């Protein structure tokens, strides 16, 4: 009886693992399959050129790739220090009641729907950005980056905090014995020990930022041009998919959607591989 249960459990868990693995394989397979006709068809590699003008038969989506990277990186550059700041505050820099409040706030923020940020930002942030930057329409790289940094912040902060809480507990006495204040323990002992955790949080945040659709679609302006300034209206790969999937399924524009999907997958794989190799070098060092 007990023996059987063990077997059943093993099989069940193995099967769920298999399902997960197959799902990933299927996602990659399907998207590559649907993107393939674009390359084998008439336009060939023109899809990877720099101009998007379907009226003239130009279907380059590289500006969108650049826009995706720009928006995600700027969101990360803003959001990561903020997340780190919040975690340090919670784990020692701020009075305990404030820290506890902030932690509650972060938990609550994970429940904030993305579309809520987008909806509120259209009416609050866009006019401010238009007047503040003095150029452009307010629908811009900067606007999307700002809101995205807020969107990815709680996930990053909670991942950081999970690591820091354990490390801090472990090192609190060590630090105290060395004559460190709580702040010094945090900056000199805990943070270096949590390096990997901070890195993983950054990768996670980047993934969420580059993968978000609604915020860029609603706030970045969606102009298919190369990003060059913060007030530029730009179109990310995700927004491109949302906008163009609606077109006729015969056109090259439609095919570009799947290429965009594949590019996003490739970015994701690259980030994961980089993260892994970084973590590994961290281990040997």
């Amino acid at each position, binding site marked *: 009886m007990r023996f059987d249960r063990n077997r059943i459990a093993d099989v069940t868990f193995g099967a769920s693992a298999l399902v997960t693995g197959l799902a990933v394989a299927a996602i990659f397979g399907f998207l590559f399959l649907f993107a393939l006709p674009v390359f084998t068809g008439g336009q060939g590699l023109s899809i990877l050129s720099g101009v998007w003008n379907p009226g003239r038969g130009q279907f380059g989506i590289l500006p969108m790739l650049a826009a995706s990277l720009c928006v995600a990186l700027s969101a990360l550059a803003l959001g990561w220090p903020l997340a780190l700041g919040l975690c340090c505050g919670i784990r020692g820099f701020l009075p305990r009641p404030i820290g506890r409040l902030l932690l509650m706030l972060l938990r609550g923020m994970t429940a904030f729907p993305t579309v809520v940020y987008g909806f509120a930002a259209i009416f609050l942030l866009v*006019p401010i950005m238009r007047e503040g930057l003095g150029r452009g329409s307010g629908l811009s790289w900067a606007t999307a980056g700002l809101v995205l940094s807020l969107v990815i912040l709680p996930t990053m902060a909670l991942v950081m905090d999970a690591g820091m809480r354990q490390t801090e507990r472990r090192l609190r006495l060590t630090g105290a014995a060395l004559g460190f204040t709580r702040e010094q323990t945090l900056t000199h002992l805990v943070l270096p020990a949590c390096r990997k955790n901070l890195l993983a949080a950054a990768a996670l945040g980047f993934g969420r930022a580059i993968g978000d659709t609604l915020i860029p679609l609603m706030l970045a302006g969606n102009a298919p041009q190369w990003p060059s300034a913060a007030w530029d*209206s730009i179109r990310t790969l995700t927004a491109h998919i949302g906008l163009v999937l609606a077109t006729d399924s015969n056109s090259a524009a439609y095919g570009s959607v799947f290429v965009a999907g594949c590019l996003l997958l490739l970015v994701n794989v690259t980030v994961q591989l980089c993260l892994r190799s970084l973590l590994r070098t961290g281990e040997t060092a």
Partner: protein
Amino acid sequence: MIVCLTMAMTLSVSLASAAPLDAFKGKQGTVDIAGGTAHIPVMKEAAKRIMTVNPGIRISIAGGGSGVGVQQGGEGLVQIGNTGRALSSDEVAKYGLVSFAFAIDGVAVVINPANGVNALTAAQVKDIYAGKITNWKELGGEDRAISLYTRDEASGTREVFAKKLLAKGDVAPSANVVPSNGAMKTAVAQDPGAIGYVGIGHIDSTVKAPTMDGMTPSQENAANGTYTITRKLYMNTKGEPAGVVKDFIDYVFTPEGAEIIRASGYIPVAK
């Protein structure tokens, strides 16, 4: 207030002209509708009346743009795919779609109400969208940069605008792209330097429609032919419609349907 209005409308309908809805009595079925965003108010009101009389019929309505209408209608994912433009011969050939034009809608350039400019010409609009005119002062307005707004590639409104006003001219790549008539209106209403375009049915006090080559954009003018930047709204089915789908389309063409179309801001077209 709106509630009172709709309730009164429903009431008057059920009292005065129950006849067109009789077709649905005792029937069962599903009608999935997707496509052009301009069609939605008409579809929604019609569906609401039908389902109120007969809850056995389920009607779902999605937007997405004319491209979605062709694609999902053609693939058979929905029974009725709406487009804000005529189908190309390729599309008809590929999917075997049958079109039903039921309304006329004008497309008008809109600007922010605070903008002093009241008249534009097609040539000016073409230059603005090509990025040759970049400031309102060149058009007699105040010194303010022009922000361009255009619609996504799947939009029927965009097609009409590009064909009839821009004459297939280019749109500067820096133009903002918004995914719907409503989003266009929001953007233009907020941005004092904005220029965009919407279906005339969407124009209200939050945006201003300047005269175009002297023509005043309004539904009356579109109906009587003095405003020429117009398009038809189509329902498309894969093959000849049958069952409740046919009933639905027939209903849109009844006098009651025409009334709905007019109330939504369009001009009804006979079958």
